[in-house]
C-alpha cells in the first residue's frame, strides 16, 4: 500500500519535472535536489524526506513530454517514488526504465492526493475510492532492461557477451 503524494494533469513537461536552469547538474546523486523545483511545496517536502520510498505521484496523459534530459528521471528516482500516469512521453518513459524508476501506465487511472494505492499483478487498486484500474504492460524488450537491473547492467552484459 502506498499513498499518493501529488497529482498532476496532462502534458507535464520535463521543464516542470526538472527545470532547464538546473541542467548543468547531471549526476544522479545531485539531481534530486531540483526535482519539481518550481513546484515549491512538493520540492521542499521531498527534500525534507517527508515521503517514504514507494510513495506515488499520479499524472494524466503525456507525462514527461519535451526534453530528453535524463535528470528528469534520475531526480524522481532519487526519492524512490513510483510514477503512475495515464500515459508517458516516449523519451521520459525510456529514461525511467533505463534508470530503474518504478513506473506504472494505467490509461484509466483516477486517484487524488492522500489515496491509498496498491499494485497487484496487472491492476492498480485504489483502496480509498474502491476502484481498480488495468495496468498496460511494458513491451517485452523494455521489461528485459528492468529485469537486468537497468540499462547499465543490461549493456554491460551485452558488452561481455560481445567480447567473449
Amino acid at each position, binding site marked *: 500500500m502506498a499513498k499518493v503524494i501529488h497529482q498532476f494533469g*496532462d*502534458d507535464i*513537461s520535463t*521543464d*516542470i519535472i526538472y*527545470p*532547464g*536552469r538546473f*541542467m*548543468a*547538474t*547531471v*549526476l544522479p546523486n545531485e539531481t534530486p535536489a531540483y526535482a519539481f523545483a*518550481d513546484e515549491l511545496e512538493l520540492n521542499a517536502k521531498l527534500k525534507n524526506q517527508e515521503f517514504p520510498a514507494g510513495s506515488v505521484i499520479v499524472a494524466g*496523459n*503525456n507525462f514527461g*513530454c*519535451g*526534453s*530528453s*534530459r*535524463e535528470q528528469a*528521471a534520475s531526480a524522481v528516482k532519487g526519492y524512490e517514488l513510483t510514477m503512475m500516469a495515464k*500515459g508517458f*512521453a*516516449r*523519451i521520459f518513459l*525510456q*529514461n525511467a526504465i*533505463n*534508470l530503474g524508476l518504478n513506473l506504472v501506465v494505467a490509461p484509466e487511472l483516477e486517484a487524488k492526493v492522500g489515496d491509498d494505492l496498491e499494485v497487484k499483478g496487472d491492476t492498480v487498486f485504489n483502496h480509498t475510492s474502491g476502484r481498480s484500474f488495468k495496468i498496460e504492460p511494458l*513491451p*517485452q*524488450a*523494455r521489461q*528485459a*532492461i528492468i529485469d537486468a537491473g*537497468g*540499462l*547499465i547492467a*543490461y*549493456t*554491460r552484459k*551485452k*558488452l*561481455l557477451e*560481445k*567480447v567473449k
Partner: protein
Amino acid sequence: MGYTLVEKILARASGKLSVKVGEVLEPAVDLAMSHENGALVINQFLEVYRDTGLPPKVWDPSKIAIIFDHRVPAESSKTATNQKKIREFVKNQGITKFHDIRGDRGGICHQILSESGYVRPGYVVVGTDSHTTTHGALGAFAFGIGATEMAAVWTLGKALNVEVPATIKVVVNGEFPPMVGPKDLILHLIGKISAQGANFRVIEFHGETIRKMPTSGRLVLCNMSVEAGATSGIVPSDTETLRYLREEAGVKEEIPLVTPDADAEYAQVIEIDAAKLTPQIACPHTVDNVKAVNEVAGLKLNQIVIGSCTNGRLDDLAVAAGILKDRKVASEVRLLIFPASWSIYKKALQKGYLSDLMEAGAVIVNPGCGCCLGVHQGALGDGEVALATTNRNFKGRMGNPNAEVYLCSPQVAAASAITGVITDPRKGGN
C-alpha cells in the same frame, strides 16, 4: 505491401529484409550526437565498463559528434568543468566530429550536423537531445534518447530496443500566402493533432509544398515534430536534399537516396492546404495551444527572440532584417537574435543582415541554445511576456516559471518587434 521510410531505414540498419510496426530491433547507429550532456554520457559509459576489466573504448569514434551549444561560453564553473571533462574524453577517444566553442566551426548541434554534411539520407541518427528529430529533414531516421541510452550506443554501436514506430503521413499542397511559412505549417499541425497526437509515431511529410520547400524549411518541420510527441519527423530525400548536401554542406561522396514505397501503410493520413494557412501563435504553456495571430494580436511584449535550432537560419535572419531594416525596435521591448551557427552568423554579417538588425536596436547574441531553455542569457523577469521563434513555451522555459512564452515565425517576431505587441506581419509593423 510496401514500406514507409522509417521501416526501410530500420530494416537496412538491422540487417533485415522486412520489418513490421511494433517489432523490437537493435539498429546500427550511423551518427550519435551529444552536447554538454555528454558529461553525463561519459559518466554512464564508464559505469558500463566498471569491473569488466575492459578498457573503456567507444565503438567508433568517427560516428560520434559532440557539439557545445547549451551554455556557451560557459555560464558557470560547473559547466566549464563538464566541458573540460568532455574535451579530455574527446581527445582520449579520438572523436573527430567535435565542435568546441569556436567562431570557425561552432554553433547549435542541430544546425552543425546538417551544415557539416554529417547526416545523410537513410541514416539512423540518435542524439541526447529531443530535437534530434530535426535531421529527418535530410531523410534520416533521427530521434532523441537519454544519456544512459547513449552510453549503450557508445559501447555497442547499436540503439537498443527500438520499436518500429507507426507512421503518420502528412500531405501538404498549395502555396504559402505571403508572410506565412513552414513555422506556421508545423504550429498548425501540432495544434490540430495535439502535443501527444504523434506519440510513439513518426510524421512523414509529403506533397507539392514539401517538394518545393528548401531544406531550411524542412528542418523547421522535423525540428518541431517532437512537439506533437513524434519519435521523429522525416522528409523523403529528393533533388533538394542532394542540392543542400552538395552546395551547402559540401558533401562530395555519392549520396544514395531512400524513399518510401507508394503502397506503404500509414496509421493516419492528414491533408493540409498551405494556401489556407495564416500566421500561427502557440500560446502558453503548451505548444499545442495554437491560435491564429489575430486572436492574440495587441498583446504587450517584453522580449522577442529570433533564433535557435528552429528558426535561426540565414533565411530567417533575412526575413527579420528585411522587415526591420530602417525601422526601430519598440522602446519597451528587447530583441535578441541568436543565429543557429557561426557559419550563419558570418554569412548574415557579410550580407548586412546583422548591421540592419543592430541599427534597428536588436542585440546579436552568439549562437547557442541558452535563451530558449532558460539556462544562459535572455532570462525573463517575473510577469514578463516573450515572443520567440524557438520551439517550446512550457512553464519555466526561458528561465522563469512566472513568465510567459509565445511561439511564432520570424515574420511575426520581426513585425512585433517594431510595435512591441503581437502583430500580424501581413498588416505591417506600423
